[in-house]
Every structure is written in C-alpha cells, then in structure tokens.
C-alpha cells in the first residue's frame, strides 16, 4: 500500500512537470473572447449548423449563449482549455441568479458545467428577448 502512495506522490510531481512543459511548449492561444466567427465555427464542428440570432457574452468572454430560430432553444458555448464545449438546450434549463457587482450567475442542469458569470443587464435583456 505504501508503494502505491509513493507511486501516487511521484505521479503528482510528474503531472506538475508535464503541466509546465506542455504549457511552455503549447501556450493556449484561445484566450480572446468568443466571437461570432468562433461561435459559427464551433456550431459547424459540432454538427449543429443552426442559424443563431444574437449571443450574449459572459464577463470573462469564455462563454456565450445564443438563441436559435427555434423559439424555445438555446445554444451555450464554453471554452474549456483550447477547445470548446457546446450544449443545445431548452430555454427552461437556464437558471439565472443575481450575484455581486451587477452580475448574474448562469447555470444549467449539468454537473460538469460550473456556473458562468454574466453581466446582469446583458443576461436580463437576453432573457427578455427570449421570453
């Protein structure tokens, strides 16, 4: 058992070393805010060639929510590392709760998607437009 824990601790050091090495050799170039082009590119990549009207950007610029031509449907795009994750969801699955400094935390019913922070006015206007 102690050998296993020693292995685990050595692995942790290896992970830190590899993390630093990969970060140095492959710096993440996807650091800018999500743009219209990125959104459309990711829709195509995820085989969801849906027309989107407009989208609202999170405070960090790493997440965006758009509505599709389908009345009760939303598309959420989120940057995860240098890749993008995408969800197509009904409007009802979006949960908005006020947070500090005129922002709102937006979450969906997904354990692996931490809440995203949006400007309160932006997300309220977006929600109103979709009402």
């Amino acid at each position: 058992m102690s050998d296993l824990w020693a292995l685990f601790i050595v692995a942790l050091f290896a992970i830190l070393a590899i993390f630093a090495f990969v970060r140095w050799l492959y710096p993440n170039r996807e650091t800018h805010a999500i743009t219209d082009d990125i959104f459309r590119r990711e829709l195509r990549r995820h085989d969801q060639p849906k027309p989107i009207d407009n989208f609202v950007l999170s405070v960090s610029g790493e997440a965006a929510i758009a509505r599709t031509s389908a009345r009760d449907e939303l598309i959420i795009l989120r940057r995860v590392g240098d890749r993008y994750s995408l969800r197509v969801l009904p409007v009802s699955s979006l949960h908005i709760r006020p947070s500090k400094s005129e922002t709102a935390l937006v979450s969906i019913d997904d354990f692996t998607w931490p809440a995203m922070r949006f400007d309160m006015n932006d997300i309220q206007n977006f929600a109103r437009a979709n009402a």
Partner: protein
Amino acid sequence: MPENLPDINISSLAGPLYVVLILIEIVAIKLRGGGGSYEAKDASTSIFMGAGSAVIGGSLGFINIAVLIFVYNLAPVKLPFNVWTFVACFILWDFCYYWAHRYYHRCRWAWAAHVVHHSSQHYNLSTALRQTWTGLFTGALVLYLPLALLGFHPALIALCGGLNLIYQFWFHTEYIDKFPKWVEAVMNTPSHHCVHHANNPRYLDANYAGVFIIWDRLFGSFVPELASDPPRYGLVSDLGTFNPLRVFSHEYVGIFKDITKPGLTLVQRVLYVFAPPGWCHDGSRLSSQQIKQNYVAKHGKPKNNAGLPE
C-alpha cells in the same frame, strides 16, 4: 509452473515508460508541427486520473485476484504454464476484453465508469491514462471468469491483462498514421482506435478491440477511419470542466438524478441504470443509434455509410 509466476501489476509498473513516451510525443508533435495536440490542463487531468486509477486498482486488485482464484479452483482441468498456454490466454483475454469493452459502452452503469476515458477532447498518449477509478464495480470481471474456469492460472490471466493494457497505451496518438494493410487488418492501431474515441455519429459504438481488431470485424462493430469524416474527439455532450472529481463522478451523478425523478415506474428507474447510455423515458435524450438515424435523416445516406444505419 503457475505458482512461480510473478504476482505483479505490470501495467502500473509501466508508469515511467508511459511518462517518457508522453514526453517524446509532446516534443515530436511540436517538431513536426502537427499530428496531434496537447493542452496543459487536459493532459494533467488525464495523468491524474491515471495515477488515481493505479492507486485504487492496486489497492483493490486483490478482490479480482481472489475471485479468479476461487473460480480457478473450480476448474476441472488446470493448464500448465508454457508458451502455448500463454499465447492462448493472451488471445482469449483479448476476446473477453472485447466483450467487456462493448458492455462498458452499452450499459449505463458500466459507462458511468468508462466515460472518464472518453472525456477528453484531445487524442494523445496522455488520454490513454485517463482511466476510471471505479472499474471494479462495473462487474465486468464476470466476463473474464471463463478463462479461470478453462484452467488458466489467475497470475497468467493477470499477466496477459497487464500486457494487453500496455499494448493499448501506444495507439492513443494522432502522430502515427496508418500501418501496412496486413497490420491494419489484424491489429488494433491508432487509426482504428481514434475512431473509437470520436463522437462523429458514424463512429459511435465502434472498434471496441484491445489488441486484435479482428473481433470488431467478426462481430460487426468495425468502422474504418474515413478521410471524408475526420474524427472529432470527446463525448457527445462535451464536459465543461477539467476538475478530476467531476470528470470521475459526473455520470454517476446523472444516474442518481435520473433514478430519483418523481413519477417514474420501477422499470424506468432500473433502465436509467442499466439501459444503453442516452436511454430516457420521455424522448428528451438520444441513444447512439438514434443519433446515427438522425444524422442520416438530416444529411442523407453518404456514399460510404460505414457505421451508419442501412
């Protein structure tokens, strides 16, 4: 003699080799300027999952061995350890692995463990280490018990399993292209296994093989990598985090949420645990078969419809 076989988990002992090969791949991709990609958080999560899997697997592995020994003692014939029984055991272990792996993908309870391995949007050697921590609880061991019942010693079974898993490490790469046709016909290769990690509709539930791709060809689950449909890696529903605890547990959380929904029958609750991933009682989600059907309905039948419904 079987009693003289080393009782070691050689797959875990290969750890340093794995790290060296990952470092070589990281540099090689950079030098070539293509043939794969790395992302720091993604690779770290993968290796952390692998380290956790080695510790938990190493701690609880004795349970698997105890069950194998119990069944082995029931075997009417005990096979000797020689080159022929080693080769036979290796091939049969791979056959059992094929069915175990198919079970991981077709039963949500097992998928909840195996999903970890498919959760990266990258396909590189670090992805190979992104392993579950709950493999023991899938019940897949049952599929290997016939080996012990045939008279193969548990240590030989464990040795073949370890070698099989070591073989499976190297083909988690985009750096290597296709091999000569005869190799691709018989062996599992990077080209075959990248299909298995892709979430393109035609590639879902394909290429379950460990070492020999012949099992997929025999049992109808083989889909070749097509230049016209480049693999897109990850899950059908991408994860939004690198947090290892969430990566490890998210499907179990999903199962728990589903079976505790109000108004379901007992059968529906059971199906949420054991039916294929994507099954649901109200049509709000899609199984892999439905995703394939929808793809054909949306895009029409492509020229090469490998992996898609007839």
